[in-house]
């Protein structure tokens, strides 16, 4: 019975509202402190600026954050595009311009492939006696050369 009584009393006490501070409370307190000579105007100005700083910083951050996000995204896209473009160049430029063979040479080689394929390297023993000898001794000469190169 006692507990039941206390329960409703707790509920009743919970019905009592509170009173939030008014929006002008801090300003009025500052004015009062200045009026009474406890705080100078410059101190009040400085401290109110200090107190407002986190709020202002929060507002600025709220505005700047989407812009920073967009800038970061744009940067990533640019870098990605650049990497992709570079990668494309690697794919098409198979000829090292500073190397032993140029693109024009490769084209020439391609156009002359029939001649090259039809060229019997070992046909003339005077021109290439080494090849002639190998070819006649063993048909697997190329395998032996490769095996020897690995050693």
């Amino acid at each position: 019975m006692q507990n039941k009584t206390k329960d409703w009393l707790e509920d009743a006490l919970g019905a009592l509202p509170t009173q939030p501070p008014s929006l002008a409370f801090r300003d009025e307190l500052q004015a009062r402190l200045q009026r009474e000579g406890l705080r100078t105007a410059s101190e009040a100005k400085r401290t109110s600026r200090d107190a407002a700083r986190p709020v202002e910083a929060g507002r600025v951050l709220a505005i700047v954050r989407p812009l920073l996000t967009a800038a970061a995204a744009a940067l990533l896209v640019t870098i990605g595009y650049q990497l992709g473009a570079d990668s494309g160049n690697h794919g098409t430029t198979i000829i090292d311009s500073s190397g032993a063979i140029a693109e024009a040479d490769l084209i020439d080689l391609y156009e002359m492939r029939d001649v090259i394929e039809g060229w019997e390297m070992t046909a003339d023993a005077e021109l290439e006696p080494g090849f002639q000898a190998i070819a006649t001794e063993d048909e697997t000469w190329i395998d032996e050369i490769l095996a020897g190169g690995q050693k």
Partner: protein
Amino acid sequence: MTESEDQGVIWMQAFQAGDEAAFDQIVEAYQGLVFGVLRRLLGPSGWVEEMAQETFVRLYRARDRYAPAGKLSTFIYRIAYNLALNRIRDEGRRPSSSLQFGKEGEEMVVPDSVERTAPEAQSDSQDWASLVDKGLAELPENQRAALVFQHYDGLDLTEIGEVLGISSKAAKSLLHRARENLRLYLQPFKDAEQD
């Protein structure tokens, strides 16, 4: 929590060292607490804002003599309580004549008139918030304060004792009487609600 761990004490010590911004942080952090306790001690009067302002002015003035001895909130409660007490006495807002008090204003007797007239006349037209307001206003100030500090602000008996300047044992006794007196005051309204 020791006073060295209490953020309020840290701010107050910074304020004592000359950091004016620390005082503003105290105001920001504790203004809700001050308004709440004054509202419950003073009731729906127009004095809450003025007394809240006075509380912080007193705190500002206490800069040089403040010595950490517990949480800053306890110190602020004490200032607010003393100001509210003075205001109540100045205004003559003593409990209504329908109630009688024993020695030192600690005992309250609910007269027949309250039980007889309250439910019919007032139960339908007044909500529980205003009834509790009136019930609290009928309590002796120290009982009212003990109940407010315990129920709304969550202070324990030791803290209530510190704020009111009494022992924790006396605070416990005060709290018990406050609850019983408020229950006696509100019971007729509760009964009327159930009928």
